[in-house]
């Protein structure tokens, strides 16, 4: 039987710092860790003592990639804690900017972080000379997503105009018309992306797990900005205010990011594949067509297909954004004052951001000062599930005689398929092999 040791320090092409450490003795795993070596951030601690309205602008600084997602979850938590009702216009604009971030993050992950593995290169940079059309397309798609966020929030990284109670700036109708035209034109880029993606070989691996996400009824829209908590093991919806019934956090020594389990599973998965598995019937018809073409059906238990689900969500977000812009233009945009607090208490907010369901929860004292804060991050929720996948994946690969280098690459690809965001989660990644 083989002995294999793998040590990858600082897995590349992921957001943040993480190591993979695996030891196989006589064909059996004796040690396996996905170590999170990112600095602990302490956001939950230093939010205490800050005012209610500061929370969204402080917590968006948890992550540059999912800045709009953190802002959105934080706004919803603050508004729940302060009894703030926002207008239908605000909800539509928030959905639109969140779609922009899903697109920006998924395009970044698919083209810049994941695809180089499939094309056998270390980064997107050599592709600039070998596949210039691919790189230009990726940049064009990313720029559109950024511009969508910019028109509504002022910028993608750390949006400005999003405040508790509403927006301090509205896009001009002409900007929205131009964005709609560019979104329509990007259908061709999405088609080429799907063609490229269908030529890549997705590793064959399945392990049954629980998939958790938000869901809006059975015929509501595909859930990102709002919804109740559901999972493939417990489809009965739970109100987000009771999220602690479904998400149980624990501190483990090898990770500055806490691990999570559910009442039904020792590990579960959130993210694009989880949303697809729970809500595929609620996708836009064009996104459903692509899922059919790519052969992705719920419930899919192969985590590598998280990439496939991201691509399908890109189509959904593009079509949904076009519909949202039409709706916003039909209703007409009007200046609205920020809605004011009606009381101060406790409140939670959840949003399905690019990497999965994100929870913020605050407790406010009678003056609106934050006294307690709890933030549960998608990558943190996925860590235990990634480790469980590795445990199931490694022994058969070792037994098959696969080289250490190829096993290492496969493990790195697995970690990247989850599109981890380690800055967020510490508030991940090096593979360490020993032979």
């Amino acid at each position, binding site marked *: 039987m083989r002995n294999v040791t793998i040590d990858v320090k600082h897995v590349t092409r992921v957001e943040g710092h993480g190591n993979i450490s695996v030891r196989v003795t006589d064909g059996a795993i004796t040690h396996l860790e996905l170590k999170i070596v990112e*600095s602990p951030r302490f956001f939950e601690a230093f939010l205490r003592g800050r005012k209610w309205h*500061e929370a969204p602008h402080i917590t968006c*600084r948890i992550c540059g990639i999912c800045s709009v997602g953190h802002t959105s979850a934080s706004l919803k938590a603050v508004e729940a804690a302060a009894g703030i009702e926002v207008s239908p216009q605000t909800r539509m604009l928030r959905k639109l900017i969140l779609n922009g971030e899903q697109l920006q993050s998924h395009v970044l992950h698919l083209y810049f972080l994941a695809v180089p593995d499939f094309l056998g290169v270390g980064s*997107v940079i050599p592709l600039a000379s070998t596949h210039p059309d691919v790189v230009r397309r990726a940049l064009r798609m990313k720029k559109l997503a950024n511009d969508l966020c910019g028109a509504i929030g002022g910028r993608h990284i750390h949006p*400005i105009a999003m405040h508790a109670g509403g927006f301090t700036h509205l896009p001009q109708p002409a900007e929205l018309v131009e964005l709609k035209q560019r979104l329509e034109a990007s259908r061709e880029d999405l088609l080429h992306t799907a063609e490229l993606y269908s030529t890549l070989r997705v590793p064959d691996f399945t392990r049954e797990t629980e998939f958790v996400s938000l869901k809006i009824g059975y015929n509501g829209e595909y859930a990102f900005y709002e919804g109740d908590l559901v999972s493939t093991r417990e489809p009965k919806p739970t109100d987000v205010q009771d999220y602690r019934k479904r998400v149980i956090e624990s501190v483990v020594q090898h990770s500055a990011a806490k691990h999570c389990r559910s009442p039904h599973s020792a590990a579960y998965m959130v993210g694009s594949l989880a949303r697809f598995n729970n809500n595929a019937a609620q996708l836009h018809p064009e996104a459903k067509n692509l899922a059919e073409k790519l052969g992705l059906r719920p419930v899919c238990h192969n985590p590598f297909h998280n990439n496939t689900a991201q691509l399908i969500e890109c189509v959904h977000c593009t079509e949904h954004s076009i519909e949202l812009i039409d709706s916003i233009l039909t209703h007409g945009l009007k200046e609205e004052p920020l809605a004011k607090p009606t009381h101060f208490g406790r409140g939670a907010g959840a949003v399905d951001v690019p990497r999965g369901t994100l929870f913020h929860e605050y407790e406010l004292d009678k003056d609106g000062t934050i006294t307690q804060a709890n933030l549960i991050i998608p990558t943190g929720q996925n860590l235990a599930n990634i480790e469980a996948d590795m445990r199931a994946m490694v022994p058969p690969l070792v037994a098959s005689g696969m080289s250490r280098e190829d096993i290492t690459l496969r493990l790195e690809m697995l970690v990247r398929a989850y599109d981890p965001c380690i*800055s967020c989660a510490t*508030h991940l990644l090096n593979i360490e092999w020993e032979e």
Partner: protein
Amino acid sequence: MKPRIGVFSLTSCEGCSLAILELEDQLLDILGAVEVVNFREGMTERSWEVDVGFVDGAVSTPEDEREAKHLRESCRTLVAIGACACLGGVNTLKNRQEEKDYRAYVYGDRAAWFETQPARPLSAVVKVDFELPGCPMVKEEFLRFVQCALSGRSFQLPDYAVCVDCKKKGNLCLYEKGVFCLGPVTRAGCEAICPSFGSRCEACRGVLGEQALVTAGVNLRESYGVALEDVLADVQRYGAFQGNTLP
């Protein structure tokens, strides 16, 4: 020979590294003019012989401190990018609480497993050659820095206040709407982006000087009735002011 570029992250959201990737229109030109030799977030290859190293993030763990010293030795020119690297950023908010308390609040009785120290800007630990401030850094300013570096021209940050750019853009002053704003004391160079989107300036690019801050603080209290704690909340948020109170 093309200059060898590295992009590195200490304790941060990595948004400033990401901002480089958001220069979609110029990215291919930049990649044509430089050789990127180390950028963990975007590539597998990692070299430690670097001409210009860009660093985002604050120094907030013993590991950060070792890494900062290693980066100083590895990079001929070291550039701090973003509020965390230039000022300490939002990370400095934890410095205002007892270390034992904030560690226990997040990690409970297992706090000792995770090392931390008060957050500091990069310049507090090693010599920094240039700073590109902002939360996040301003992409256009990064581009101007790269152009200067490639053509051998000197690079300087604007030494005037955000208000100058805000007036140039024709924005209605937020003070006219009864909103206080730190534009008068904050370093320009961001195109006054926050006031342009209806939100007050929060000094993420740092203040022009402590004297300006003290004067503005008095003026805000006496002329506009703004409470000192509200001014302090804003100037402390991204590390622009490390003190506890203003006179």
